[in-house]
């Protein structure tokens, strides 16, 4: 009898302990980041581009690079994924639809570095060099599964009443989809888009083989471009203390960007619904 009571208590204690254990890394990361990164946050960081050791440099080119590459990735991925999601949701029984759904899930399982290498082969080599565009393409591929799933699920949640109402007024499939289904599903689709965005903003491996990095501020997407993950990778593995500082700062900025986008999207969706 007593042993059962003890077992119960031990088990409960165990659950609590392990829960804390899972939260712990998050806190450790945030605290470490703040501790080390706060010192690095200064105007230079966001106004100056990378400079050789000794000169005061910043992360401006990487910040701009991240923003450009992820935005273009989103622009590439959105129409493809959303429309694929529409097809999967509206015609679930067709063969192509089933293949799409499965493929989408499989893409999610491909290691990001593999995607990077493949895009290197199919985009970088034919184009004759590294480019931001190739990076965007790689990241876009990674966005596809999330957005397709989010779109399909949002659409499938729409009661068939609205579809029928639209068709009964004489609207055809296209207009019903564009003017009733997608607007209705938009909050879900946007959520999917933005969670994808948050994911790819921090991806390093694919960019290594595609946009490669660039010490200068470059706005030409056909040329190599820097990005925050690349900067962090390079600077953190360097022997220079100053560069380590910058790496911490860049990490903080990266997290802030992801955070901001997340908050804005959530507020945006709320406003839309109202």
């Amino acid at each position: 009898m007593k042993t059962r009571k003890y077992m119960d208590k031990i088990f409960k204690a165990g659950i609590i302990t392990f829960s804390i254990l899972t939260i712990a890394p998050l806190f450790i990361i945030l605290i470490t980041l703040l501790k080390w990164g706060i010192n690095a946050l200064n105007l230079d960081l966001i106004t100056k581009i990378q400079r050789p050791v000794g000169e005061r440099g910043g992360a401006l080119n990487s910040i701009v690079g991240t923003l450009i590459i992820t935005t273009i990735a989103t622009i590439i991925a959105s129409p493809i994924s959303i429309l694929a999601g529409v097809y999967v949701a509206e015609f679930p029984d067709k063969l192509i639809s089933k293949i799409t759904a499965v493929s989408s899930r499989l893409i999610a399982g491909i290691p990001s570095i593999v995607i990077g290498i493949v895009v290197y082969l199919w985009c970088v080599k034919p184009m004759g060099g590294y480019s931001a565009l190739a990076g965007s393409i790689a990241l876009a591929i990674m966005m596809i599964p999330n957005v397709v799933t989010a779109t399909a699920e949002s659409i499938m949640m729409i009661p068939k009443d609205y579809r029928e109402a639209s068709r009964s007024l004489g609207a055809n499939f296209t207009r019903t989809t564009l003017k009733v289904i997608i607007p209705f599903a938009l909050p879900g689709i946007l959520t999917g888009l933005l969670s994808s965005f948050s994911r790819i903003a921090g991806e390093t491996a694919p960019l290594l083989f595609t946009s490669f990095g660039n010490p200068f501020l470059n706005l030409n997407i056909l040329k190599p471009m820097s990005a925050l993950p690349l900067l962090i990778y390079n600077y953190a593995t360097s022997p220079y203390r100053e560069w380590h500082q910058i790496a911490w700062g860049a990490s903080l900025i990266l997290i802030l960007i992801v955070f901001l986008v997340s908050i804005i999207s959530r507020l945006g969706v709320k406003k839309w619904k109202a």
Partner: protein
Amino acid sequence: MESIILTVENLNVFYGEHQVLFNINLKVHEKKITAIMGPSGCGKSTLLRSINRMHELYKDVKVEGRIYLKSEDIFQMPPEEVRSKIGMVFQRPNPFPHMSIYDNVIAGYILRGIKLKKEERDEIVEKNLKSVGLWEEVKDKLFKKGTFLSGGQQQRLCIARALAMNPDIILLDEPTSSLDPQATAKIEELLVDLKERVTILIVTHNIGQASRISDYVAFLYNGVLVEFGPSTKIFTTPENKVTEEFLSGKFG
């Protein structure tokens, strides 16, 4: 002189292998209310939805037979054209939640890509909201979304939306079954007023409703049209024994 606006000829409908409607022949009188009545599962909604070809949105539904609107075969017309001439109101009110009340009324035009001038739009909205008795209640809130409206008001909005397309016929599939008695009474009165403007075909499982508002009744049982006639005849001296039993409440 009454004329026939819709003729259903030898209609058979199958859900996969399972036959749901058997050889339905029906003539609908213009500018009258015809009720389709019968116990649950008898095929009333199936019959109604055949008329505006809603079955084509789903696979596995096979429709055989002919349906003529005036004298045109509706299966030879593009489905979108059929549906612009034959409107529908559903059991649960379903105004588009992401559109304002104003836009909901003209939703048919928006969704078909028909461009209208502002004066035309305003006129259509006002005229049809007045026809359903909603104008006074919503005229100051036209550009708000319709979610604050009560169930009865939402359903009237849906009727306005269907009316705005100026259809020849409006199909109503148990339009008041999710509404309270007062809202139901309002809509029944509305339908009686509307028949001057448009032919009405209503499916109802409520015998009282059918007797109150209809001019003609079609009684369906197990997918077969058992009896059809003027309401006064069907409710006083039905010819068929099954009709008699249904009306006396022997089965529902």
